[in-house]
């Protein structure tokens, strides 16, 4: 008992957080984004060469003859994955388990990408930009991408011994049967969440409670997305009920079923803050705004507890948001958009 207590002492958090906190100053700040939005693509490339993205950049410069845009995309993806994998390797015991849960969003992203690819039946010769910081290896998804058919993918997933791949296999089965994309994605998401819940059940601490809250908020966003489709009239209420996922942080399925306006849905919940920005009933904008709030909430955890999972939560969010922002910025600059339009597309938090 005493030894178990020793193993779970917060020292791992102290070590991990000290190392992560040292890297917070590496992230770009609002002024950096504004400066970059004024530049040309080649100038952004030169700027990034001088940052921590430089190493991946040089590699892609040497190895593959790619366009500037694609080189930037690759460098961002590689560096982000390396940073997050490095952070996970520094964690031990409880923090390691919780980081596995926090980084499972890569598996969700990759799995959903695959499901959409096979659902649409589109033929794409290249490779998508996999998120390489999850539990399942990128090579696994790359192999599935090259499969001949959805049933082939399903067989490979079920043969791979991991709860995530089995959940993906079941979701592929649904696609093969002709189910809708949200229904298939729901099966995958539910399978992943069940496994993540099992990991969290091993630790009954305030840190695991925070990660559980994060998963709950993710479920809220999924449910809001389904709800907004009903509100926009593209999905029937009966079908939506089957797509909602139980276990959200603040939005019960009853509330989701009975609300027709964003105000009814979000009042007196932690998502209430996004209501202030609505001008009228733009229900379809709920998810986008909720996502912004979710990012800000994660990054806002940074100073909550220096000896808890809060620092890692904020670090992961910071890294992923920087990746997303830089991608959006590069696309905006490449398209020749106005600076203010580009800045408006970014989520600037922290």
């Amino acid at each position, binding site marked *: 008992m005493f030894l178990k207590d020793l193993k779970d*002492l*917060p*020292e*791992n958090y*102290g*070590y*991990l*957080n*000290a*190392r992560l906190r*040292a*890297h917070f100053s590496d992230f770009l700040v609002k002024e950096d984004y504004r400066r970059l939005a004024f530049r040309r693509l080649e100038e952004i490339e030169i700027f990034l060469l001088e940052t921590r993205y430089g190493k991946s950049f040089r590699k892609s410069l040497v190895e593959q003859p790619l366009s500037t845009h694609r080189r930037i995309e690759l460098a961002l993806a590689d560096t982000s994955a390396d940073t997050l994998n490095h952070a996970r390797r*520094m964690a031990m015991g409880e923090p390691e388990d919780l980081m596995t849960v926090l980084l499972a969003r890569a598996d969700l992203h990759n799995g959903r990408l695959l499901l959409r690819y096979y659902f649409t039946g589109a033929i794409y010769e290249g490779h998508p930009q996999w998120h390489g910081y999850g539990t399942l290896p990128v090579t696994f998804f790359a192999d599935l991408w090259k499969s001949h058919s959805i049933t082939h993918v399903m067989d490979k997933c079920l043969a791979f011994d991991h709860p995530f791949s089995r959940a993906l296999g079941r979701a592929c089965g649904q696609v093969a049967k002709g189910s809708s994309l949200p229904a298939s994605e729901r099966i995958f998401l539910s399978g992943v969440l069940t496994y993540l819940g099992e990991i969290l059940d091993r630790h009954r601490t305030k840190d695991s409670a925070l990660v559980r809250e994060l998963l709950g908020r993710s479920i809220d966003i999924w449910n809001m997305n389904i709800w907004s489709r009903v509100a926009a009239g593209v999905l029937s209420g009966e079908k939506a009920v089957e797509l909602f996922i139980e276990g959200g942080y603040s939005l019960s399925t009853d509330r989701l079923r009975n609300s027709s306006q964003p105000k009814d849905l979000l009042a007196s919940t932690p998502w209430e803050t996004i209501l202030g920005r609505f001008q009228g009933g733009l229900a379809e904008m709920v998810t986008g705004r909720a996502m912004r709030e979710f990012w800000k909430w994660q990054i806002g955890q940074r100073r909550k507890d220096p*000896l808890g999972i809060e620092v890692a939560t904020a670090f992961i969010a910071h890294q992923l948001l920087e990746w997303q922002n830089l991608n959006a910025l590069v696309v905006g600059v490449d398209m020749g958009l106005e600076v203010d339009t580009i800045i408006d597309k970014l989520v600037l938090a922290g």
Partner: protein
Amino acid sequence: MEKALIALAAALAVGLPAIATAYAQARIGSVGAGTIAEKPETGGIIIILEALPETMVILGFVVAVMLILQFA
């Protein structure tokens, strides 16, 4: 009996601060190791911070010596 109680008091005067020091140093040590790994230039400050809780044991030791010299 009296001597035994004095010895016990002296032992507690050293022992309890020692446990508290160990706890504090364990926390500071792990955080310090993480900090030095990323920023080696902070090494000097970390060593000072790591040594600070030692003062608790030193004070406890002084109290223990005083107890023994006064009453034993």
